[in-house]
Each structure stands twice: as structure tokens, then as C-alpha cells.
């Protein structure tokens, strides 16, 4: 552990802009929710109605867990426990990978390790920084809420649940970086664990027979805390224990591998390239294949989970007393499917964005330069990435629609298979607008790639919280997903889809023109 203090300070300094942004975004979630509750729902009647609307919306139950919107505190927990927890977890994962595996990839860790720095220092310092960032976010959120007059216990418990979610995922990331041979692999592994915990929790929360499943998920614990209503301490203790255990396991595994290597040593490969690897596209396909497969499989699993609970939503919602608000199971189901298919679409857009951005990271890592010094043209080179960004995202959402439709039918949902698949396929128009933004950025504003992720986040917030917050059609219409026709509800209009495709086409064109004209790094 020699050099711990210096490495921690170095890590903190490298993140001195990034982490405050994350922390600010996380703190804003609960604080803005608490502050806006009275404005959004001024009368007791409106508060009760909000509670009923959200409580009887199975999609929100699936996404955020059980909720109680009858108080400002309950609304705050609904808006920020699961959603904020996801952000904290992401922040923790990216922070740990950045200061461990990514440093090894770049060779900087080797340089620093030759100084008086212990073998475990990087891991422990990264874990500490990620945990401190989570604690800062949770602590500031609690202080903000208390400042606004929220119940002290509830505020502290909510803050603690956010902070400890960060600690848990810092521990998980600390294990993943020992297995993944590269930063990218380690991040994918940790995100896979995050996705699996989310699905496990969502599955448990929307099913009567599998309710125990959420106890197996770290994100399940985040939701089980139920700050401001139940204030459960047990899940907090579980998170603390899991985070510590994760760190200990990470340290034990780190002791079993060499710097820069994974636990599983890389094997030698072929001394000759296959026939497939003769073109720029052949290379892109080789690089993009693992990502397409893991996102595709991940979204298909998500489709199965969504489909499997869609038929029995009436049971779980009826049990919690909200069933009477609706005529029958069919309504639950269509609200649920329409929202969840949009969420799958947003995830598919996430795949598409990162596939397009991959071209930019090949450029900044100086691997595009030798390729573009051959007769391979910029358009062909970038075009290969766009095949995956646009084609891959369409394929991924279609695959998720198919598994969702099959699972829904197997578990007794009423929606016809063909409508489910058609709805999923229709998301492509909106997905391509977001992927188009990423494409245009690569060509025109390559230094501002983060704008694509901000666009994705705005789309998600508008799609999920927009209708509840009564933002009005103009604001909601910013999200391209808002304009996808409701095929499950029996409406189909081609015109809005064509407009979306047109916008996506123009954005793609802008990106292609840009990449032809600008300097290559």
C-alpha cells in the first residue's frame, strides 16, 4: 500500500472536472424532485392521484421499483433511488476502470509502479476515490434535502443508499478489472453485472412468485431501502458488506496476476490474416463483432424478462391495491409494453452511439492513421462503423422485440406477437436520429462526442418522467421516441416515421461530409 496517498491525490486531480459533474447530476435528482413536489402536485387530491397513477403503472414499477408518491419524500425516493443509484453505479464503474485497467493499458501504470508504489495501491486508491465520490453525492443529496426541510432520517437514509450503491459497484468493478484484459472489456463486464442486477431487481419487483429475486441484486438493495417510508437499514448493511467483500476479492485476484495482464493469459493467434480480414470493413467487423453480440444478447435477455412479467402484471398490481383503478389486465399490459419497448429502443440507441463513436476512439488511439495511409478512403473506413451503428442498432432492437414477443406469448400476455415485434422495429426511426447525432458529431465536432450521450439521457428522462411531469407536447416532442406511432394501440402512421428517417439521413450525411473534410488526428 505504499504511495496510497499520492496515487489517491493523483487520481482525484485527474478527475477534478469529471467527478464534480457526475456528483452534481446525481445530487440534482433528489433535490429537484423534493423541491418540485408541491408545485407538481399542489393539492392532496393531486398527490393521491399521482400516487395512484405511478403505483398502477407497471412500467414504472419495472424500472424503478415500488413507490409511494403520496409524500414529497416518497416522490423523491421514486425519482432518485433507482435512477440515481444507476448513475452512482456508472460513475463508480467508470472511475475504477479508468484508474486501474485503463492506466495499465496506456502503460502509465508501469511507469508509476516502478516508483515506490505497492501492488494493490492502484486498486485500493481507485476504489477509495469511487467510494468517496459516491459518499460525496449521497452526503450532498442528504444535506440538500435537509436544507429544503425534508425529514432528517429519510434524507440521511436516501443519501446513504446512493453512497453505498457506489461502494458496491466500486467493489464489483474492482473484481471485473482483474478479469478483463483491456479497459473496454472490464467496463463491459462491469456494465453487464449492472444490467443483470437491474433485470433481476425488475423481475423480482414485477412478479409475485419471484419477489425474492430482488434480494439477490445489489440494485434490489438500493430500492429495498425505501427511504422516507420504511427506512430499512438491513439493505444498507448488505451493501456495505458487499462493497468491502468486493474490494477484498479484487485484491486477492490482483495478487494472482501480472501488471497489464488478465487472470486468463492471452493466447497466441494466427500468424496470417483470414480472407475476411482484407478490407477496412473486414477489420471493422472484427472489432465490432463482440460489442454487437454482447449488446444483442443483453437486450434479448432484457426482452425475455420484460415479456415474461407482462402477462401477470394484474396480479402484482392488483395485490398492491391499485388494480381497481383500471378496467383489466390488458391496460396494464399495453402501458407496460409501450414504455418498455421505448426503453429497449433507447438502449439500442446507446449501442448505436458507442458503435459510431468507436471510429473516433480508433482515431484518437492512432489506429486510424495507418489505415487511412492506405488506399482505404475515409468514407469507406467510417462507413464500416456506420453499418454497425445504424444496422446493428436496428438488429439489436428487433432481436429484443422478438424475444419479448415470444416470452409475452409464453407467459400469457394479450398483445399479439406481430404487434410487439412491429413496435420494436418501429423504434428504429427514433434510434437512428440519436445515432445520426453521434455520426454528425464524429464528422463535425469530434471533440464534443459527449453531446450524443447527453441527447440520449435527455431522451430517456423525457420518455420516462415526461408524461408524469405534464411537460406538454412541445417539450416531450424533443424526444424522437415520442413520435413513434402506437402500433400496440392499433395506430399506425407512416408520416412521422418518414420524417424521423429523413432527419437521421441528414445527420448521417453531415457526418460523412464532415469526415471527408476535416483533419484526421
Amino acid at each position, binding site marked *: 500500500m505504499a504511495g496510497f496517498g499520492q496515487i489517491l491525490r493523483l487520481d482525484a486531480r485527474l478527475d477534478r472536472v469529471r467527478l464534480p459533474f457526475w456528483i452534481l447530476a446525481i445530487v440534482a435528482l433528489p433535490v429537484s424532485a423534493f423541491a418540485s413536489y408541491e408545485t407538481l402536485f399542489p393539492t392532496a387530491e393531486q398527490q393521491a392521484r399521482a400516487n395512484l397513477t405511478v403505483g398502477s403503472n407497471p412500467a414504472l414499477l419495472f424500472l424503478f421499483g415500488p413507490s409511494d408518491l403520496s409524500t414529497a419524500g416518497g416522490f423523491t425516493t421514486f425519482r432518485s433511488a433507482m435512477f440515481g443509484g444507476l448513475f452512482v453505479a456508472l460513475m463508480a464503474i467508470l472511475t475504477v476502470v479508468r484508474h486501474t485497467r485503463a492506466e495499465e493499458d496506456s502503460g502509465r501504470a508501469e511507469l508509476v509502479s516502478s516508483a515506490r508504489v505497492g501492488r494493490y495501491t492502484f486498486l485500493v486508491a481507485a476504489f477509495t476515490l469511487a467510494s468517496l465520490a459516491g459518499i460525496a453525492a449521497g452526503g450532498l443529496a442528504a444535506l440538500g434535502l435537509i436544507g429544503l426541510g425534508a425529514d432528517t432520517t429519510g434524507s440521511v437514509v436516501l443519501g446513504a443508499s446512493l453512497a453505498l450503491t457506489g461502494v458496491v459497484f466500486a467493489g464489483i468493478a474492482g473484481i471485473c478489472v482483474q478479469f478483463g484484459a483491456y479497459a473496454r472489456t472490464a467496463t463491459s463486464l462491469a456494465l453487464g453485472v449492472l444490467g443483470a442486477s437491474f433485470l433481476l431487481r425488475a423481475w423480482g419487483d414485477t412478479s409475485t412468485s419471484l419477489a425474492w429475486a430482488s434480494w439477490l441484486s445489489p440494485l434490489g438493495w438500493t430500492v429495498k431501502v425505501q427511504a422516507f417510508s420504511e427506512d430499512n437499514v438491513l439493505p444498507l448493511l448488505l451493501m456495505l458488506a458487499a462493497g468491502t467483500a468486493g474490494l477484498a476479492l479484487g485484491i486477492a485476484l490482483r495478487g494472482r496476476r501480472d501488471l497489464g495482464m488478465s487472470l486468463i493469459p*492471452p493466447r497466441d*493467434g494466427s500468424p496470417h*490474416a483470414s480472407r475476411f*480480414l482484407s478490407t477496412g470493413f473486414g477489420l471493422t467487423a472484427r472489432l465490432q463483432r463482440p460489442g454487437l453480440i454482447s449488446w444483442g444478447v443483453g437486450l434479448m435477455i432484457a426482452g425475455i424478462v420484460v415479456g415474461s412479467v407482462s402477462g401477470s402484471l394484474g396480479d402484482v398490481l392488483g395485490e398492491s391495491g391499485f388494480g381497481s383503478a383500471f378496467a383489466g389486465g390488458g391496460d396494464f399490459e399495453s402501458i407496460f409494453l409501450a414504455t418498455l419497448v421505448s426503453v429497449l429502443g433507447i438502449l439500442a440507441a446507446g449501442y448505436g452511439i458507442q458503435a459510431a463513436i468507436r471510429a473516433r476512439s480508433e482515431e484518437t488511439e492512432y489506429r486510424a492513421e495507418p489505415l487511412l*495511409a*492506405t*488506399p482505404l478512403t475515409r468514407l469507406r473506413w467510417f462507413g464500416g462503423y456506420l453499418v454497425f451503428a445504424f444496422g446493428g442498432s436496428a438488429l439489436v432492437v428487433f432481436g429484443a422485440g422478438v424475444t419479448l414477443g415470444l416470452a409475452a406469448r409464453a407467459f400469457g400476455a394479450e398483445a399479439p406477437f406481430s404487434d410487439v415485434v412491429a413496435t420494436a422495429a418501429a423504434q428504429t426511426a427514433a434510434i437512428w436520429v440519436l445515432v445520426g447525432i453521434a455520426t454528425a458529431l464524429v464528422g463535425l465536432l469530434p471533440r464534443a462526442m459527449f453531446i450524443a450521450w447527453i441527447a440520449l439521457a435527455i431522451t430517456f428522462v423525457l420518455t420516462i418522467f415526461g408524461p408524469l411531469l405534464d411537460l406538454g407536447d412541445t417539450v416531450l416532442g424533443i424526444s424522437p421516441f415520442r413520435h413513434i406511432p402506437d402500433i400496440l394501440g392499433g395506430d399506425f402512421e407512416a408520416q412521422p416515421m418518414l420524417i424521423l428517417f429523413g432527419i437521421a439521413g441528414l445527420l448521417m450525411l453531415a457526418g460523412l461530409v464532415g469526415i471527408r473534410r*476535416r483533419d*484526421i488526428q
Partner: protein
Amino acid sequence: MNAISIRDLNKWFGSTHALDDLDLDVAEGEVLGLLGPNGAGKSSAIRVLLGLLRADSGQIELLGGDPWRDTASLHQRLAYVPGDVSLWPQLTGGEAIDLLGRLRGGLDENKRQVLLDRFHLDPSKKGRAYSKGNRQKVAIVAALASNVELLILDEPTSGLDPVMEAVFQDCIKAESAEGRTVLLSSHIMSEVEALCDRVSMIRAGHIVESGTLTELRHLTRNSVSATLDRMPDDLGTWSGVHDERTDGSRVTFDVDSDQIGSAMAALSGYGIQTLVTQPPSLEELFLRHYDRGEQ
């Protein structure tokens, strides 16, 4: 006929004037050494030639074409070795060599094998497993196995050990003997002295000196060290003599190359016992140039 001909090339990065009225000629079949300190603009000039950067102004001709407009067809005729080779972690060195070669329109299978043997490179390792030197070997083998007209090499040997450096020099001599044109940017003076027909020195984005090594030497000073019977007391006033120092019966000074004859004639009047004169090494030329530039 020039393989490369650049006139008044300017390139700005924001407020940095990276290339400042740069002129550069490389004749067909010659090996030109591009010398300059870090950040002088060597790589930027090469990246303009490769069509990766767009020139802000100037005329650039590469193999008779425009590197920005005719990129793909020109790239069929050249191969490039970057100074900092970054390989794909999931590809083996052999796969990277084949890919780059095939993209250039195919590579010479026999030559590939010969080069792998000569450079002692194992083509079945994954990108991550190679050291810096071995990554450079991958790029060198890929470039040389393609049999192109023009080789553009940007500090290609900065990670090679002396044995491999010698192999590299042999290979470039063989390429040159076959009539290929080579643009070699380098820091390694012995490499440039051994390989290059002509040298261009670049400073702050501008070519400050160009010529054969003999020509360049002529522009500068020889160093003279002599032991004499009597000491001249007016040495500082002799034309072309600089930095004179005396130590007992020993005198050392630098003399402009075109004044060396008259200096020797004058010196002989003082009874020369020993005499050593040295032409400036490329390294000295380089240091003198850039030291002078700093002042």
C-alpha cells in the same frame, strides 16, 4: 522529376503555426532525411503528404498528384510507417501486416517471410504482447513487404535495438538500390548519415537547410587543434576563425569551411608540430543549427 514537391506549405492548429512556408523536395529514387527536434513539424508535414491533414495554403505534389484530392490512388503507390505504432489489441502482428498489405493492394509473400526472419518478429502474438520496438517492426514489415514506389517513414526506428537498426539500414539500402524513393524523418544521426542522399533540416515548421551532407558541412565550420612552436597573438583577427582557445603551446579553434585553406597557410608560419582537423559531424551540424535557433 520530383516524387514530392512542397511549396509554401502552411498549417495552423488553432493559434499554433505548425508549418510555416515549408518547402521540401524529394527527387525520384533518392533517400531524403528530414531532421528536426520534437515539435518542429516533421510529423505534421508527413500527415499533410498523406492527406490526413488539410493544408491551409501552399502547393503540394505527391507522385504527380494532389495528396488531399487523389488520396486513394496515391496511397496505392506508397507505404507509411508511423513513429508511434498503435496496433489493434485483438489482432496478431501477422494479421495486422496482412491487413495493411492487402489494403495497399497485396503484399509480396516471400518478402514478408524474409523480413519476419530478418527482424526476428513472431507474427502470432496479439497486439498487446508486443513491445514498442516489435510494434514498429510490424509496421516496417508491412510497409516493406508491399513493394511500393515511395516509403514515408516517420522516425521508424526509435524503438529498435542496435542490431535491428542495422537490419533496418540494410533493408532501406536494398529498397533504395531498387529505385524506391524514401522520405525518412529521424533523430538518429548515424542512420541519416548512413542512408540519406540529402538532408533537410526543419525548425519551427520551416526548412532551414537542405542539401547533401557535403554541402551542409561546407556551410559550417571545421574544428582545428594544433600544437605550435610559437603562439600567434592575433589569432582572433584571422578571417573565418572563431572560438579560439590557447593552452600552453596548444591552440584550438573553429574555422569556416571556406576559410580553412588560408587559416592553414597562416598557421604553418608558427611551426606546426601536431595538427588535427575535424569536419563537423551531422550531430554537430544539428546542434549548431538548433542552438543558434534558440538564441
